[in-house]
């Protein structure tokens, strides 16, 4: 395949997915959503029949950077198109933040084999750090505060390292569950952090520009969620790039080997605890960053927002996508976050239908929407 042709295939693929994304975010009416639910699988099936999916996959594998850049640009165009649609932008931002957390889980869960059922707790730590730091240290640039919130999350997660290294499998999972519940109770009984009634959070302000204002009219104006959507997009893209770099490097290779067989890797001189700790800290760092941006965007956080059920949602994003595949969390996050929202029209039955859809997907794609492929030791067609 010539380079130009590859680029063209990638661009077509990206445009199609951005169009699908647009439809998914924008459609509101009952029949439109119904149509979308029927049409989307049909479209994907047709694409598969037309060999376009394979074509696209090959192309994307050849030029990963080009794919990432064009996808980010595609979503940017989407954000511009939706600039007056507050709600669609809010949903898009939430999806992108959940993608960031899920990428963290992919490192922990998919690479190193550490099950983390407290993702939302680390997300919450990031959110609360953002709220507190932004309130008391107004002079510190907000970008630093976001970074610091991610670090706080990773550091508090470090408390769990010892028990998690001592245990394995289900027992390690139990520790994370306990931590999630512990954190929520701690926030509820502690008046310093607003108690059960929650805490107001100041919005982001970068270089004197308040994110809560509507978008500068020089750039065409738009919703105040637009800035957050772009920030979340950049964050998700950076997290994706980092995840991919980890996966491709000997970091990822070591983590994979620790996951597959800890004893065997140890006998080859791989320091298993070290890689587990690295994966755990990196994942929680991602969750903390996303939590910080989320808190600033929603302007209000309360312990009730960081339930065990939300941790389960995040784990199910990773599972539904296909464990260990960084790309897969994007469609999965979209389904898990946006679908229940689209089902608002059927009110109290919406979570029921949502559950059915998820079960159906796993019935036909038992190892997730896009299972992780075999590791590629060589990239490009030169090999």
């Amino acid at each position: 395949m010539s380079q130009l042709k590859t680029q063209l295939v990638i661009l077509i693929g990206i445009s199609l997915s951005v169009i699908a994304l647009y439809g998914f975010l924008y459609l509101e009416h009952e029949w439109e959503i119904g149509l979308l639910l029927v049409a989307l699988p049909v479209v994907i099936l047709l694409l598969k029949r037309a060999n376009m999916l394979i074509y696209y996959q090959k192309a994307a594998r050849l030029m990963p950077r080009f794919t990432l850049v064009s996808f980010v640009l595609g979503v940017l165009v989407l954000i511009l198109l939706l600039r007056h649609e507050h709600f669609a932008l809010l949903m898009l931002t939430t999806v992108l933040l959940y993608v960031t957390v899920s990428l963290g889980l992919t490192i922990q869960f998919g690479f190193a084999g550490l099950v983390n059922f407290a993702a939302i707790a680390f997300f919450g730590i990031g959110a609360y750090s953002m709220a507190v730091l932004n309130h008391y240290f107004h002079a510190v640039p907000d970008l630093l505060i976001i970074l610091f919130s991610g670090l706080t999350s990773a550091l508090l997660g470090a408390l769990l390292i010892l028990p998690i290294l001592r245990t394995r499998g289900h027992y390690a999972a139990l520790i994370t569950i306990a931590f999630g519940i512990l954190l929520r109770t701690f926030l509820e009984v502690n008046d310093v952090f607003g108690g059960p009634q929650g805490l107001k959070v100041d919005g982001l302000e970068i270089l004197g520009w308040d994110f809560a204002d509507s978008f500068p009219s020089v750039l065409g104006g738009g919703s105040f969620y637009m800035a957050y959507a772009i920030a979340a997009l950049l964050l998700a893209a950076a997290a994706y790039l980092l995840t991919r770099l980890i996966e491709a490097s000997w970091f990822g290779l070591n983590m994979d080997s620790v996951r597959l067989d800890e004893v065997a890797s140890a006998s080859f001189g791989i320091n298993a605890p070290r890689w587990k700790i690295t994966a755990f800290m990196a994942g929680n760092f991602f969750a903390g960053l996303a939590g910080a941006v989320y808190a600033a965007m929603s302007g209000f956080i309360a312990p009730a927002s960081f339930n065990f059920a939300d941790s389960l949602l995040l784990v199910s994003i990773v599972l539904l996508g296909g464990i260990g595949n960084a790309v897969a969390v994007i469609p999965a996050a979209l389904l898990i976050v946006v679908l229940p929202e689209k089902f608002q029209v059927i009110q109290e039955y919406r979570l029921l239908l949502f559950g059915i859809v998820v079960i159906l997907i796993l019935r036909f794609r038992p190892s997730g929407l896009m299972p992780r492929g075999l590791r590629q030791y060589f990239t490009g067609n030169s090999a």
Partner: protein
Amino acid sequence: MSDKLKLPNVFIVLICCVFLIGCSDQPETIKITFIGPLTGGVSAGGLGGRNSADLAISLRNESPDSNYKYELVSLDDECKPNIGVQVATKAAADKNIVAGVTHYCSAVAMGTVDVYHKFGLPVIVWGAVLPDITYGNDHPEIHRVNGTMINQNMVAAEFMIEQGFSKWAVIHDTTDYGKGHFKYFEKALTERSGTILGTFGVNPDQQDFTAELTKIKALNPEVIYFGGLAPTGVRIRAQMDKLGMDQVFQGTSGIVSDAFIDGVGELAEGVLAFREGAPTEKLPGGKMFMQAYEARDFNEPAEAYGAFAFAATDLIIDVIEKVGPDRKLIREELNVIREHESIVGPITFDSHGQNTIALITKYVIQDGSWVLWEDSEYASGNRSLK
């Protein structure tokens, strides 16, 4: 499988995509949103509220006098602040929605008030009780029909002064609940020139109150006000008797339970307490509401706050009938609502949008059960508090 692209299939895909995004929405009837928990642990309250709001809408649509047709857009906040902010944004960003009847859970309402303010969507809270929802901000969009602990203590202070009492001693627990009640009772009482001789903050787990009660005895108040829950209240009331204190015992909504009467026994006679809302059948329009509700065959009962959701929806419709379906006009009209008739009694919003004459029920214990003050022998004069 060959690697060739099959062009006809690609075209079909493109056509499908064009079809999918070529959809637009058309404005029709006037939309009002209802937001409450429709799924999850407290969904019973949310569904009851949803049905009641729905009832208000359909009654109005059937009436020949109404100028517009109305439609209820019900959204589920799951009683979670993050989901609440999402659906609030969804409703507020929808230009066809002109007003909202929103929230049963306080934490959700606290999170969404800023969203409504940002988008200028006038809303009436129908169930959440935290005072800060209306008093923690200056947003002109936020109103509330149901009462809070502020209203409860205002009614309590006014009622007790009417009964001829003037000197109080206060014991409250140091939780949000107890502290809040004390704060608002003190404020309401001093406005009405009652005196508080002494205040004692106690831990809800405290067992022995001899020290506090001995001091109170020396102060010689007429009434002991207790802000806290039944278990602590039981211990205080029982220990008062041991010290030979026969002051009137006045509690808050936290002691209105059978557990209090069971715990105190005979001493419970004549204990007073106040609570937000009222049993639906005791509401001014309760009978009519219950009848209309039952006539509709809803799957779920209206629950305690259903009548408030009905009243809020009805008020919004009244305002729309008067000023038209415009958010700003509706907001301005809601801000000046005074003595508006509703099934939960007249509604008057203060400068924060809080219903100041929110319904508070007065209870007294008579012969081992909680009796509405108006129905009791104390009100009719056959018995006296002292």
